[in-house]
């Protein structure tokens, strides 16, 4: 039905396929190809395995590998322990303020991990950290309660900003589990808790496993938080090590070789996931049953909320309080007093710091462009694949999801290798950053829109086709409007992700193409914490404003799915 190859009118599906296949090829295959070539090349040229030999024998590489593994496993476990109960409380209990809790999790998702790490320096540096000062003042002791400059500190901060991924997966899965199975359990005499234990939780387990995997991969490939905390703590993770390989004299072939293990681990884990879970988990989920039932917590309702808020104070309340304090007090390690209030830092950032305006402009332009391009690309590809509209759509799907397996920092290295020399030199332009952002975000955008397409019956599109519209016109006039809310959610998702991206940008920027995240990262080098706080808060205001406006777009806003629902 979907493939009617011979109509009398010209239908440019073949050209569309060629175009998008070529675009995806450029986005995905070129940088990864260069990464592979460099990883197996000697500095002087010629193939070699020496880079890998060094990688797996030299202590300065083995230590970061081990550290990264410990970091990823621990963060993943912590994220699951925290996010699963929270997701259940928000989706399946009668806890008060459930929407507010979802919103606050969203706020921690919008916070870039590097900014969170800096905020936690302000809170938990062993001597000047506000929490440690409080501890000493209240107990009269002179030790430190928390030390953020440790591997434990890093694991904690990474978990703070990774758990939203697990939370969203679990909460959304629980939202979608139809009530009929639970009703059946109840009718057969199962109590609320028994039903939860025997029916709901097992049904949500695949989502939790997927969450654990995502958290593991995020923690493994994250650059921002380790980039802030690892150096003072005196160790490297793989990502900070890769970044340091660009120090003079740059060793791109080693950086490429060091990126490949991250890529291989990601691919293996994603393959393993689909092999183990396959469709099993989600085959049950997805039906449109009645309202999910909620479990009455009784007297535990408010303590449950208290627990959620206490957890959320770690990624949201405390860090933003610390940033606000640093932005307006004379010295960041001093609690803001009436006399100590100053606007000097705000003035410095907006009137003296000459990079501010450029970084704001670059960030805004790139985020708007990447969100728009990424959403459109994902829209067309998911349409082609959902409606099987062109031959070879599986290849498109594969290419669109492949970047999922590419850590952002590896993507950065790959693009750097591909576009710093001829024939096409994009290094030094915003284009290379745009390429990086679109590629990195494409899988998430694709998956969101693909899910939306699956929930959309093809009848209306068929009506449009019968009435004589071409496929592309149908996509534009019928399908896209129906998908409006999902499209907006996807757009916002990409926008937020681009604003907070640092891993690829830290490798690809030049002085003319500096973005906000890189500017903040650079300010951290010389310890200008107050300026960082002002810029970080600006970043939050910028993101919230744009998301707010996007959700007001007439006819599309007021929607439920995706970001809005988080």
């Amino acid at each position: 039905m979907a493939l009617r190859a011979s109509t009398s009118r010209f239908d440019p599906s073949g050209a569309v396929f060629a175009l998008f296949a070529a675009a995806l090829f450029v986005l995905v295959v070129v940088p990864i190809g260069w990464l592979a070539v460099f990883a197996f090349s000697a500095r002087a040229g010629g193939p070699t395995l020496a880079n890998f030999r060094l990688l797996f024998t030299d202590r300065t590489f083995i230590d970061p590998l081990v550290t990264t593994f410990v970091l990823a496993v621990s963060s993943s476990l912590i994220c699951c322990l925290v996010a699963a109960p929270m997701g259940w409380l928000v989706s399946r209990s009668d806890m008060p303020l459930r929407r507010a809790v979802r919103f606050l999790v969203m706020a921690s998702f919008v916070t870039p991990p590097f900014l969170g790490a800096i905020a936690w320096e302000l809170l938990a540096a062993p001597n000047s950290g506000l929490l440690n000062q409080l501890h000493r003042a209240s107990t009269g002791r002179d030790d430190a309660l928390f030390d953020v400059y440790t591997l434990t500190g890093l694991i904690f901060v990474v978990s703070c900003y990774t758990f939203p991924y697990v939370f969203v997966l679990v909460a959304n899965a629980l939202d979608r589990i139809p009530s009929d199975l639970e009703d059946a359990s109840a009718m057969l005499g199962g109590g609320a808790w028994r039903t939860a234990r025997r029916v709901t939780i097992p049904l949500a387990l695949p989502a939790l496993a997927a969450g654990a995997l995502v958290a593991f991969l995020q923690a493994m490939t994250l650059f921002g938080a380790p980039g802030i905390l690892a150096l003072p703590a005196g160790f490297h993770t793989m990502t900070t090590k890769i970044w340091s390989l660009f120090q003079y004299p740059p060793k791109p072939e080693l950086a490429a070789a060091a990126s490949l293990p991250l890529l291989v681990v990601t691919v293996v884990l994603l393959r393993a996931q689909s092999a183990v879970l396959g469709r099993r988990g989600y085959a049950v989920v997805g039906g449109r049953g009645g309202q999910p039932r909620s479990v009455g917590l009784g007297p535990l309702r408010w303590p449950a909320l208290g627990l959620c808020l206490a957890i959320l104070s770690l990624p949201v309340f405390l860090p933003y309080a610390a940033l606000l304090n640093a932005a307006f007090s004379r010295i960041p390690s001093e609690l803001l007093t009436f006399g100590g209030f100053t606007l000097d830092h705000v003035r410095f950032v907006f009137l003296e710091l000459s990079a501010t305006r450029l970084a704001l402009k670059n960030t805004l332009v790139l985020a708007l462009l990447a969100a728009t391009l990424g959403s459109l690309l994902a829209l067309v590809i998911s349409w082609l694949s959902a409606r099987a509209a062109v031959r070879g759509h599986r290849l498109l799907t594969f290419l669109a999801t492949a970047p999922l397996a590419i850590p952002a920092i590896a993507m950065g290295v790959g693009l750097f290798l591909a576009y710093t020399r001829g024939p096409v030199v994009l290094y030094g332009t915003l284009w290379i950053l745009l390429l990086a952002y679109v590629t990195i975000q494409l899988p998430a955008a694709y998956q969101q829109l693909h899910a939306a397409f699956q929930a959309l019956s093809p009848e209306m599109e068929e009506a449009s086709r019968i009435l004589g519209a071409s496929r592309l016109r149908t996509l534009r006039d019928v399908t896209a409007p129906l998908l409006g809310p999902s499209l907006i959610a996807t757009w916002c998702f990409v926008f937020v992700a681009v604003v907070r991206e640092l891993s690829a940008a830290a490798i690809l920027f030049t002085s003319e193409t500096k973005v906000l995240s890189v500017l903040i990262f650079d300010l951290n080098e010389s310890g200008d914490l107050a300026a960082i706080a002002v810029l970080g808060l600006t970043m939050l205001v910028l993101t919230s404003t744009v998301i707010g406006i996007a959700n007001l777009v007439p006819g599309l806003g007021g929607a439920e799915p995706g970001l809005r629902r988080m």
Partner: protein
Amino acid sequence: MQPDKPGRRQILKGLTAGAIVLAAPLRTARAAPAAGKVTPDLIEAAKKEGKAVWYTAVDLPVAERIAKSFEAKYPGIDMRVERSGGERIFQRVGQEYASNIHAVDVLHSSDAAHFIVWKRDGIFAPYVPEDVALHYPMEQRDPDGLFASWRVWLSVIGYNTKLVKAADAPKSFADLLDPKWMGKIVKGHPGYSGTIMTATFQISRDLGWEYFEKLSRQKVMQVQSSADPPKKLALGERAVMADGNEYNLFQLKEKGEPVEIVYPTEGTPLIIGPSGVPKDAPHPNAARLLQSYLFSAEAQQLMVDFGGLRSFHAQVKDKPGRKPLREIKLMKDDPAAVEKNADEIKAHYSKYFKV
């Protein structure tokens, strides 16, 4: 100035005479070009370009302050400050020039060794600002007129006066190895900061690498820029800094923050940061105007008064209350040796400090 006591300039001359001369190729140096005057034509041409991009390693507030004073003096020219540590500037310029990206108009690094490499690579255009020709000692000028010493400062020991009593404060590098400073020291990193690179070379040359090996066992807090240790002292995050900028401590101290400077008895590392105009500067006239301004008595005095730096400009006066250079025992700077040993210094360093 007492006749039997050498003056500041003579001291510096003795200490640094070899440095820039060594930087010159061995063939007989060409005569430096005629002094570049700030003419109305130059100003007009610079305004037409409308922009100047300055890669600099000087701490950000100082850099932005100088940029603002330049913009005030020459309205219509937008300054863009690109600040990072000297070693990262070196990396950045290398990366950008390798891809034919020529974004920088005036280039300054806190590691004088970089200028040896850049000169060898032929990236500079000859340009000698009039102030340099008239008021700077010969040995602070590149013989071919490609760059000159823009600023001079020290990498010192420092402490937080709330956390450490003056009597207990370290007096020397050797004192820092005392177990009582375990976990209380902060220091910069030679992979990011040109100041720390230069200082690490001088200290390892004079005291041996054993010093760093022992220091690394003191659970040192490692930060990047040499501008950061003074800020960590002011925050109260660490009690003592093992290296870092004297000029940041001057600024903080004069603002009333509880920090104090120590000039170690073994000698204090002397850092000299040159500045030059690349021949591929995208705004060549604005670049020359900026270079002239940076070396002017006005800008140099601002750097001393506001920034806490020291100057080679003959007409610039020290700020009262700061210890004059001639009273400080200095280590000898040697950019040529830093250039030769840079990789080895970084390798040694990360072996001991693990980062």
